């Protein structure tokens, strides 16, 4: 059987603020068994739109398998709030949450908060990396089995399985632990959008910082590339920097106004390639185009054996073939309890420099149940 494609789509619908509209789109995406949908967000005055994470929380109970990946920006929002909000989306969706990391680079957004001015893109992406680091540490800060309900001792939790994260960065510090228990996926799926130009030798500082953030924290990269050759080069470079577990989805605009356009898309998706794992479709008209994807494109891909007929597992990590990471703190505790590693139990936890999430399960094959 040929390698399975990963397919996802944007459901951005500027101007729509009713839950019914997004519910209809999510149902189309789910009928197509897409891995996930994304919804953009920003604090810019235009276009008119709802908070993306709120919208996807509203969709969680009315969907069953679809991954939900809202944009949450990092420039003005508290990292602690971001971590618990994405964590909560994972709880309410039963493990289908992701986070498309964004930054706010406009004067208008800065003034709406009135707390700090604008900053260059490289600084914003360095701050976004810190926010991703804090979010991941907070997700890990409760070990999976921290809740013990031990009636004999009267202890609801084992406090030794809750961890301070003690993050100190340029822009903020966060003590932890989280107030929200570890999410069902361990860590929700982190997504970063990258343009091939960001990987070029002459890339701007902001683009380079974006790639650095993606390479270190992303489980999935949404890759913008103008052509197939550029896509291949960029994907190769990304894998070199981030490792083989990174999922790379080429972002392609679609406008499925007629049968010819639909047939062309089927051809493009079936051909696959360019070093990517699949595609992120950006519809011109989400209702029309997602209906065409569900009714025409995906059935054709299924006939070719290229795409799943149903969701294989309940979580977004399952769809993407990504392992559930163990908590870094549980791993550290395991290491420190072995006689060979003379690490005192109270020693600060060493965070692996390479923040590649998928590295953790290889080191600690803990298929954690909850």
């Amino acid at each position, binding site marked *: 059987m040929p390698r399975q494609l990963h397919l996802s789509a944007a459901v951005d619908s500027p101007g729509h603020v009713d839950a019914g509209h997004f519910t209809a789109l999510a149902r189309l995406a789910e009928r197509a068994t897409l891995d996930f949908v994304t919804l953009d967000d920003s604090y810019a005055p235009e276009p008119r739109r*709802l908070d993306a994470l709120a919208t996807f929380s509203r969709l969680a*109970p009315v969907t069953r398998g679809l991954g939900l990946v809202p944009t949450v920006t990092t420039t003005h929002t508290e990292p602690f709030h971001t971590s618990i909000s994405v964590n909560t989306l994972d709880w309410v969706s039963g493990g289908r949450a992701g986070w498309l990391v964004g930054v706010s680079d406009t004067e208008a957004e800065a003034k709406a908060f009135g707390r700090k001015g604008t900053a260059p893109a490289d600084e914003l992406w360095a701050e976004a990396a810190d926010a991703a680091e804090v979010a991941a540490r907070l997700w890990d800060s409760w070990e999976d089995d921290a809740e013990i309900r031990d009636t004999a001792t009267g202890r609801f939790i084992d406090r030794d399985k809750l961890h301070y994260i003690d993050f100190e960065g340029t822009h903020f510090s966060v003590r932890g632990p989280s107030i929200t228990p570890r999410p069902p996926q361990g860590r929700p799926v982190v997504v970063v959008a990258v343009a091939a130009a960001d990987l070029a030798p002459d890339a701007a500082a902001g683009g380079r910082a974006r790639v650095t953030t993606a390479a270190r924290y992303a489980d999935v990269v949404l890759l913008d590339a103008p052509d197939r050759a550029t896509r291949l080069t960029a994907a190769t470079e990304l894998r070199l920097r981030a490792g083989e577990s990174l999922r790379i989805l080429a972002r392609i605009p679609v406008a499925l106004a007629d049968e010819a356009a639909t047939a062309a898309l089927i051809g493009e998706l079936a051909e696959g390639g360019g070093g990517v794992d699949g595609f992120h479709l950006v519809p011109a008209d989400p209702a029309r185009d997602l209906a065409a994807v569900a009714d025409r494109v995906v059935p054709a891909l299924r006939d070719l054996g290229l795409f799943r007929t149903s969701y294989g597992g309940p979580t977004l990590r399952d769809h993407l073939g990504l392992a559930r990471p163990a908590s870094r703190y549980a791993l550290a505790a395991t290491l420190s309890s072995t006689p060979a590693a003379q690490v005192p139990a109270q020693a600060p936890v060493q965070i692996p420099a390479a923040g590649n999430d998928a590295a953790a399960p290889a080191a600690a094959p803990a298929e954690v149940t909850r």
Partner: protein
Amino acid sequence: MTDRPLKQIHLAAHFPGVNNTTVWTDPASGSQIDFASFRHLAETAERGRFDFFFLAEGLRLREVKGRIHDLDVVGRPESITVLNALAAVTTRLGLAATVNATFNEPYELARRFASLDHLSDGRAAWNVVTSSDAFTGENFRRGGYLDRADRYTRAAEFVQLVREFWDAADGGTVRHRGPQFDVEGTLSLPRPPQGHPVVIQAGDSDEGREFAAATADVIFSRHHTLTAGQAFHADVKRRLAAYGRKPDELKIMPGVTYVLGDTQEEAVERAAEIRRAQVSPATTIGYLEQVWGVDLSGHDPDGPLPTVDPVPDSGIVKGRTTLGDPLEIAAKWRAVAEEKKLTSRELVIEVTGRQSFIGTPEAVADRIDTYVQSDAADGFILVPHLTPGGLDDFVDRVVPLLQERGVFRTEYTGTTLRDHLGLPVPGRP
């Protein structure tokens, strides 16, 4: 009592959990974090035609003697996110989130509550709380800089600014220069369906009452007796006129627990069991340490109160609402213990209880109705002691009795939370 028409009772439900209210040792105690638990409680509240469902907040885990407190239910989701999900599985129930005004920014909260109001078709509510707690501040950029005295100043300006954003929604630009905030922003959303999501204020202090009278739609209070409730009711309603508001524009809803039994004796017995489960020997010591500020791990919870004097501001307990001056509290507790001949544990059970309706369904319905008809409250926020089934018996056994009395709705007559509370949609200025 006069021959005025019967007042209609307002009812809300608090998601229990994340303190010692929840009796997690009960075999019927389920998850405090799975969405199914939230869904069950919300669906039960909606089945009972409640006005709203209410979530509390805590942004750092409490510590005792430098270690995370491990005896109570702990671990909660982010409230607004859960409420957006609950909006999908309910159609009328109001959805109230407690969100701190200290560790958030007005533009962002205005947008998040406006989004919840749109996604729930007009059912959002915000319970405004503030913090001067540097301990919690260690999780946030703002830290713990705020003086206690500035809390309501910031909160008042915060709420005013949020309302400006709601009023200017759909493309209008807000320009605000004040002592706390200097912002200029445009909320790119239509005005929320309720105009302004319902604003709730929790707390009984003088500043809290004034703040509520000035700007809140609901006040979440705590009063133990009918007369104390009546005095509070009269005081708060009197303050409204100064802000050009009518008495029924602010609903007073104390938080209460309740225990039902087939007989009064059975209910009283169950209530005592529940209180003993909530205040274990270890929990007793925790409460005493909170007041005394010293390590009391060697103290006998079934003996008298500690004889040593409290140490004020010792910081032994962190992340918990301060009870007040430790020396005063200790003196008061000792007086109560002596008068009623109570052990330490019995004393803690006595002084930490909140108002509770204990009895047969008929007796509980009668007392709730009496409180409301005699203006000790406009309704109640019920705090069940079990997750997720803690509201089932109230909805099955007490609500029908209130409905028979004609003091509680049998069907929702409106669609929004403002409709349920009888509050008008605020006009744009």
